[in-house]
């Protein structure tokens, strides 16, 4: 093995790829290339994930001790859990899949050169940066301790100094999300290549489309809500202040009208990634394409109708509670059926257990638990007992982290060779995935029991009443132990991914055997993706895919592939 073979430089072999096309920091800062923008988002989101994760570990470490501790006051704890939630929701999970992976993959999957509005894309990125700067400003100003949900009147009267800065940041981040959504909708409508009808479009793009619709319709409501909160704090107009005729519960309606659809912004793209991963790594056509595609749209629509299920104990009328509970199940059914479709895709597949597939399987396991535990929360009589306990915390971590975030990391591993032209260590990938999976379940499954036994959320201490510490201590200890294991898994992931950038094996164009268009350009892709608009086949038809020993990757016989599209049955 010569040194040339051993050292995989990105520039050495490929004459031109998007990473080498232009060099220098300015070529990145003012780039219009969707791939570079996606990579910048990725770095930013991963840094935020690290900060939010440290906050979580602080919270969990405090909870090893039931009573007061000298090294963390109640106020500091309250700020830590608030920051954890705000960072993870607004800076990480909502933008991560669409902005980091979607930006990179979407145009290439369409065979296009870029998104419809590249300048708007760059502007969206800088809005994210500005929002993050506001978050840092809020920390300097004293932090905020309102919970990421900012319920009034505590959020309008709290003395914490960082509340208005972070609300300004959330407002700005909202526009980053809206503009990305607009961009994706137009791109998918207008830049599909000839032959790619809606029903020939990969499911990841259906998912991004449905997500974009929610982003555009729901996020303005968040903008108005945080603007009202800023105005209330600054000028005391009284909209949420009962002594002036206002209603504190009105805030909850405004807030959840966005934030419930927001959780579908988080999960829908993740489900799209899982459709890709399961299909590609089983080397098998996805089962039930139309249903999965329609279910993404259905979930997007129904997501706007169920916000009140966060408010069953808020003083909302009994009639509203009944309606919201009933409609909530309408969102649950399409999600469940997607799971069955993915299982059916495994049937008679040819399954390779690489790291992306492990994340895909972990998703199915964790999303099943997350979805099923939503049922006692949607059911009125049980939710009265479970609301505002750790049961809810466990449920949403299973769907937001165990599902959406796991899907994002799975997608990152699935498209990493394409994005950077290198392969990471499969060995360490599997180890880290296992640590994350085991650690995650230990952290959060214990919280279901803790919650149903009555442990309330957002508690700094749990020793005020006799017997509390004895009841809950063991769950907290197990949960904290799990969080350290999970943290170790993420650290290892970061290490081997960064290591692969410097010393990873060179990646072929199609390491996994995918049939969608992104696998038909080089790894990494050239600056303008495709020199000619590629011919579109059935992106889930693997009949034209075979392993090429010389390339150490799969190849798609384009002629065979394209003919399968025109002659074969549509989806």
């Amino acid at each position: 093995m010569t040194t040339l073979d051993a050292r995989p430089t990105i520039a050495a072999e490929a004459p031109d790829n998007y990473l080498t096309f232009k060099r220098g920091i300015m070529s990145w800062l003012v780039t219009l290339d969707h791939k570079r923008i996606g990579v910048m988002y990725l770095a930013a989101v991963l840094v935020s994930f690290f900060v939010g994760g440290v906050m979580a570990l602080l919270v969990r470490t405090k909870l090893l001790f039931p009573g007061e501790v000298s090294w963390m006051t109640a106020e500091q704890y309250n700020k830590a859990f608030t920051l954890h939630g705000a960072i993870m929701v607004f800076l990480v999970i909502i933008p991560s899949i669409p902005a980091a992976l979607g930006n990179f993959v979407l145009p290439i999957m369409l065979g296009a050169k870029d998104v419809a509005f590249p300048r708007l894309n760059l502007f969206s990125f800088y809005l994210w940066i500005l929002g993050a700067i506001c978050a840092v400003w809020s920390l300097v100003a004293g932090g905020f301790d309102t919970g990421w949900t900012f319920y009034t009147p505590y959020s309008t009267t709290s003395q914490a100094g960082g509340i208005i800065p972070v609300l300004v940041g959330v407002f700005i981040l909202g526009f980053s999300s809206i503009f990305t959504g607009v961009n994706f909708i137009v791109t998918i409508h207008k830049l599909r290549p000839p032959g790619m009808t809606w029903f020939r479009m990969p499911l990841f793009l259906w998912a991004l489309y449905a997500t974009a619709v929610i982003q555009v319709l729901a996020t303005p409501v968040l903008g108005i809500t945080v603007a009202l909160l800023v105005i209330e704090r600054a000028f005391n107009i009284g909209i949420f202040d009962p002594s002036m005729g206002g209603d504190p519960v009105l805030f909850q309606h405004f807030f959840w009208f966005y934030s419930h659809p927001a959780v579908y912004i988080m999960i829908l793209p993740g489900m799209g990634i899982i459709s890709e991963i399961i299909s590609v790594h089983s080397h098998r056509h996805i089962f039930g394409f139309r249903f999965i595609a329609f279910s993404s749209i259905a979930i997007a629509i129904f997501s706007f109708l169920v916000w009140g299920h966060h408010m069953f104990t808020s003083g909302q009328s009994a009639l509203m509670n009944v309606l919201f509970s009933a409609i909530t199940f309408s969102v649950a059914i399409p999600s469940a059926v997607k799971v069955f479709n993915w299982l059916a895709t495994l049937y008679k597949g040819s399954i390779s257990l690489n790291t992306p597939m492990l994340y895909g399987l972990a998703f199915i396991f964790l999303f099943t638990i997350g979805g099923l535990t939503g049922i006692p929360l949607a059911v009125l009589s049980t939710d009265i007992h479970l609301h505002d306990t750790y049961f809810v915390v466990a449920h949403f971590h299973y769907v937001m982290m165990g599902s959406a975030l796991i899907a994002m990391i799975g997608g990152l591993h699935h498209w990493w060779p394409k994005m950077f032209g290198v392969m990471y260590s499969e060995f360490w990938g599997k180890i880290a995935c296992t640590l994350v999976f085991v650690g995650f379940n230990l952290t959060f499954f214990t919280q279901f029991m803790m919650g149903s036994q009555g442990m309330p959320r957002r508690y700094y201490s749990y020793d005020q009443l006799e017997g509390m510490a004895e009841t809950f201590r063991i769950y907290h200890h197990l949960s904290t132990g799990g969080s350290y294991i999970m943290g170790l898994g993420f650290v290892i992931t970061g290490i081997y991914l960064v290591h692969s950038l410097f010393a990873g094996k060179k990646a072929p164009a199609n390491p996994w055997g995918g049939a969608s268009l992104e696998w038909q350009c080089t790894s990494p892709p050239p600056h303008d993706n495709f020199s000619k608009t590629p011919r579109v086949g059935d992106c889930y038809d693997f009949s034209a895919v075979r392993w090429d020993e010389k390339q150490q990757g799969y190849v798609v016989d384009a002629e065979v592939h394209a003919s399968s599209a025109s002659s074969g049955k549509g989806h």
Partner: protein
Amino acid sequence: MTVLHSITSILSQADSGMGASAGDPTSIKSDDFWMPVGASNFAAEVDWVFHFINYINYFFFVLVVGIMVYFVWKYRQKGREVYARGPNHNLPLELGWTILPTIIVVVIFFFGFKGYVSMRTVPADAYQIDVTAQQWSWQFKYPNGATSPDLYVPAGKPVKLVMRSNDVLHSLYIPDFRVKQDVVPGRYTTMWFQADAATGEDKFHRLYCTEYCGKDHSRMNQKVFVLGEVQFNDWVTKQGRWLEELAAKNPNDLDILWKVGGPRLYARCASCHTIDGTPGTGPSWGNYDGSGNVWERIQAKAVHKVDGGKPIQDFIGEGKQYATPEAYLRASILNPGEHVVDGYGNVMPTFKGQLRDSEVDVLIDMMKNLKDKDTGAPNFDAKGKFIGKMETAAGSK
């Protein structure tokens, strides 16, 4: 597992938790894996629905994960083969796995709906208790005017709580009763339950605030005692007149009011004001900066500064805002925002309407008698319990 146990026991020895001393009531412990004991009329049905959902969930979880694991093993890739052949559609299957879950969730929804309707239908003859929530304590007020920081309820009768908040959102949650309702400022919210099994005063159900309300959200827990009819009536009568009864029983030694009555009232102050000098949300009644306890601090010169450096003595005295130190102490309880001690925030809620004048007098007397007059020894331990001499010279105050 033994490693886990040793770590757990080391950590529990490091606890700074508030343990119960002998004679203090103990909470009723759960005997089930998922749920606490069921102690109200709602518990049986809520638990039934919860476990029904759980069994359905176990079934589907095992089904999904089992199939997943089986397929991953059975259809593993052999070599580098690709293009596995399998069906892309199956209409009967797809319809089946859509319709069956829909039927199941509709059924479950109805169970929940039924249980919920009964939670919202308050019986007309329910015994009403008024609840005031404020940062960071609860007060329960009974029809005869009696008030209590802990919730006492009669056994075997429906009880209705009419609740209000003085500041931000709170939420009253009693897990053993399976009930919860947010408490909203500017409104009254209601909830009801019926507890049939009496706990007596040795055992209690736990009551939590469960809507995040700021710094001491996790210190807003109280006890729920269920008393049989005779015992309850007895308690509520005595509670309404507890201070008068205490005085009536000890006509020759009215010091009993601050010795026994003081600690009882102090329990509501304790979450922010410690007695032994330990720092807290509010200034400790004890000696926290070397200048003595609260009574001593407001006598001496140049200590106990308020409003950015002004000594409180500027406001106390003939012709000044407060004629006597007692008047200042009374104002600091009923109008706490007027002068804020330096180094502390303006966060104390007013207790106007929640303490009678006689109760305020008792608190002031307690602050005046933190130390024994003869020996200087502390009269109260760190939890506010009286540890001084019970018998004093007749009639002295």
